[in-house]
């Protein structure tokens, strides 16, 4: 039972440079906790108070979890989870 997780460049400093890791998590919430356990520092980068941060987009295969069950979105064997930071900025 494993899902593949794509790690974006700025977070690879937590995963010892790995662009892809595996997890047995059953949903996104569990995945965030599992990543934190293996790679401390990840949880704070990905979430705030249990919610995925506004500028972090997470996809299960091709679907944005915002349009699924958000943090409760279920994961199954063979899924690919992509963590994709938003491209954002501006004059402010």
């Amino acid at each position, binding site marked *: 039972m494993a899902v593949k997780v794509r790690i*974006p*460049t*700025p977070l690879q400093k937590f995963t010892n440079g790995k662009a892809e890791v595996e997890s047995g998590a059953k949903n996104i919430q569990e995945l965030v906790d599992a990543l934190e356990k293996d790679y401390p520092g990840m949880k704070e980068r990905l979430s705030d108070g249990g919610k995925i941060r506004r*500028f972090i*987009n997470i*996809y299960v295969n*091709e679907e*944005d979890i*915002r349009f699924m069950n958000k943090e409760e979105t279920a994961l199954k064997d063979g899924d690919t989870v*992509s963590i*994709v*930071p*938003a*491209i*954002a*900025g*501006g*004059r*402010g």
Partner: protein
Amino acid sequence: MSLIFKKSDLQAVFEHCDREYPNEACGILSGKEGRVEKIYRMTNAERSPSFYVMDPQEQFRVMKEMREAGQELVGIYHSHTGSRAYPSATDVDLAYYPEAVYLIVSLLDRKNPAARGFRIREQKISEIAVNVYS
């Protein structure tokens, strides 16, 4: 290290920025080793004169297309419609792509857009030369 642009591609970026004025425009520059080979004009989901967020679905699709084509994220461009071509505090806070050159196009003088390139890593800004060829 510099960002290398075909003149017509840079012109296309300026035209995109002008078209979105007064809102900020944004886009992705794909290519290899600092050389821009393709421009993706992206939707600013915020439609704002002071902020941009690329439409997440579009961003995901484009990044996948680039990965499959073996292209790199050479740069990310956006316009400042009322300020100079230098990263703002917001730009620095939200700079999640250390590998990319952040190209900022200032439309302070709308008829003469100015573009400058920067790397933003760990909250630190360093300027990258933008070289244009015809």
